[in-house]
């Protein structure tokens, strides 16, 4: 199919910078997820790839061809939208057929292609219905069929699952991933949901304020965050970030004390994931602030000084509040970040 190259892309709206100087290579057949909070520029980036927005500066290439001033309709990309964007006046059949008609596919091929695409998303029985007569999940599958039917070079998906309820999201997620592997089409997927990003992506691009924060596989993003933004954004509950001072191989903050590499000095931030904390010990001396059993696990919040630290405890852990408690950090899983928020890697 096609690889995508973004070269120094900039998008400005008047004085506001939507995307700043972004460069990215997306390999052929890759499933790439753009992840970030709302307003971080991820959707704008996708819309520029689609041709729905024109970059202020920089180059967009699809399959090695510069696409900057090629119309969206000629880019051979298919897009799936958050609101499904099914044409309300057309039946599902006509909806799926629309791109075939627009692209001048011979009419004799239409029916077979439409039925294949509909079968693929298991909507064969609903082809005569209008979009309004379908449930949310069915509508989103119809939108997928419409994207699939013409075998585009690139799939673009803009938060396709965020209008669905949690249960449906999970099943649709699997379906989308399966379909992408089966069709081997380069896919760019925008979401603010980290679970979707982790489960779907070959690689994740984390964005904030119009700039890339980190690019990596889900594993890299999770266990090797590049800065405090990524560390605090990924994980549920996210990584504890504790501000303090490091001196002579020791990190100190109110109620917190932990070892640190010798090259970590001065005002720094310590990061530790809730699952890398254990109850007992003395890295943290604090009080129990709250206990939240969720069934398969229990989250414990400890107040150390004025800082609340999340700890993942055993499922049967229970405690009253305001009880003194100590916490131990897994020393191999400590992260340190400088004052600029960037990771300080320990000297081996």
């Amino acid at each position, binding site marked *: 199919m096609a690889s995508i190259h973004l070269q120094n892309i900039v998008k400005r709206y008047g004085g506001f910078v939507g995307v700043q100087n972004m460069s990215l290579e997306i390999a052929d057949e890759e499933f790439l997820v753009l992840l970030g909070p709302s307003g971080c520029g991820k959707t704008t980036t996708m819309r520029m790839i689609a*041709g729905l927005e024109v970059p202020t500066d920089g180059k967009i290439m699809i399959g090695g061809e510069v696409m900057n001033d090629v119309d*969206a*309709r*000629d880019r051979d990309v298919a897009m799936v*939208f958050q609101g499904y964007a099914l044409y*309300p006046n057309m039946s599902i059949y006509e909806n799926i057929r*629309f791109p075939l008609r627009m692209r001048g596919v011979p009419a004799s091929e239409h029916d077979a292609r439409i039925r294949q695409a509909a079968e693929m998303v298991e909507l064969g029985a609903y082809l005569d219905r209008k979009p309004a007569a379908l449930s949310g999940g069915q509508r989103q599958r119809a939108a997928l069929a*419409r994207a699939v039917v013409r075998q585009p070079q690139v799939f673009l998906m803009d938060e396709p699952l965020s209008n669905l309820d949690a249960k449906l999201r999970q099943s649709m997620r699997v379906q989308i991933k399966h379909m992408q592997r089966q069709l081997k089409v380069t896919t760019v997927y925008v979401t603010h949901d980290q679970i979707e990003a982790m489960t779907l992506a070959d690689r994740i691009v984390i964005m904030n304020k119009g700039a890339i924060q980190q690019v990596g596989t889900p594993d890299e993003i999770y266990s090797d965050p590049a800065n405090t933004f990524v560390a605090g954004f990924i994980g549920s509950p996210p990584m504890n970030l504790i501000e303090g001072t490091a001196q002579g191989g020791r990190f100190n903050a109110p109620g917190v004390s932990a070892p640190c590499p010798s090259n970590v000095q001065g005002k720094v931030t310590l990061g530790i994931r809730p699952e890398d904390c254990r109850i007992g010990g003395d890295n943290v001396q604090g009080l129990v602030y709250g206990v939240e059993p969720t069934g398969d696990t229990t989250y414990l919040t400890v107040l150390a000084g004025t800082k609340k630290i999340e700890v993942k405890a055993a499922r049967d852990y229970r405690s009253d509040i305001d009880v003194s408690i100590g916490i131990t950090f897994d020393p191999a899983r400590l992260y340190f970040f400088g004052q600029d928020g960037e990771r300080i890697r320990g000297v081996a």
Partner: protein
Amino acid sequence: MASARKSRGESLLLRYLVLGTWALVCLLPILWFLSIGFRPRTEVITPQPIFWPTFSLDAWHLLMSDWPIAMYLRNSVIAVAGSVVIDLILAIPAAYALARYDFKGREDIGFYILSTRMMAPAIVAVPIFFLFKTLGLLDSVWALMLIYAAINLSLVTWIIRSYMLDIPKELEDAARTDGASDLRILWEIIIPACLPGIITAAVIAAIFAINEFLFTLLIASTANAYTMSVALANFTGGSDGIIYNAIALVSFIAFVPILILVILIQKHLSRGLTMGAVKG
């Protein structure tokens, strides 16, 4: 609890008293006027009003024999329908641009279109009269058609624009990535999606066109181009005085189709009447 219920009962009585009174205020003159249409002329204008009518088809016979009412009706229909078609052809692309494209001067152009609605017909009456005189269009249904179209163009544009604003932008983006051109998107996606708005605009424009009086009076100065509205005014015909029973009958002939049209678009009426500013 008891007192709350009591006050509720009282307010209900007051409510139906008020609503019922106004219903009578609306209906009584209409029913009375309808009865005028089926009375002999001698009964209409008398020193003392006669409240128990004698049934008569005088007015009906008069319309059928002396007045080319069919022609007036035809003139009205041609001028009104034609003007609505012109309006839609001009307004739909304009509304699309105003609703969907970001371009310099959009606000000003939109407000200019809106403001033409504010212009009193009397202001432009004299120049338009001379313009059509020069063009040789006086006394013609075509002139009326052009005038009606101009009067309603702002209204139609703004109503359709309002409905287009409601269509999710995603729909267009989807169509664009599916390979459709701008005009195709307008034709295949936007127009079907805002059809209720287009119909509302067309109906309201038609009603205003049927109602238009001043220009029709000035431009249609001979019986060849009379529409229903002006024909009415001309039943004040000369030595016979005002022929009220014929006027009443003609009024109701025009009233029925308008009533049907309005019932069809009832849900959209308030939005249409405010040019889209109020969503009903």
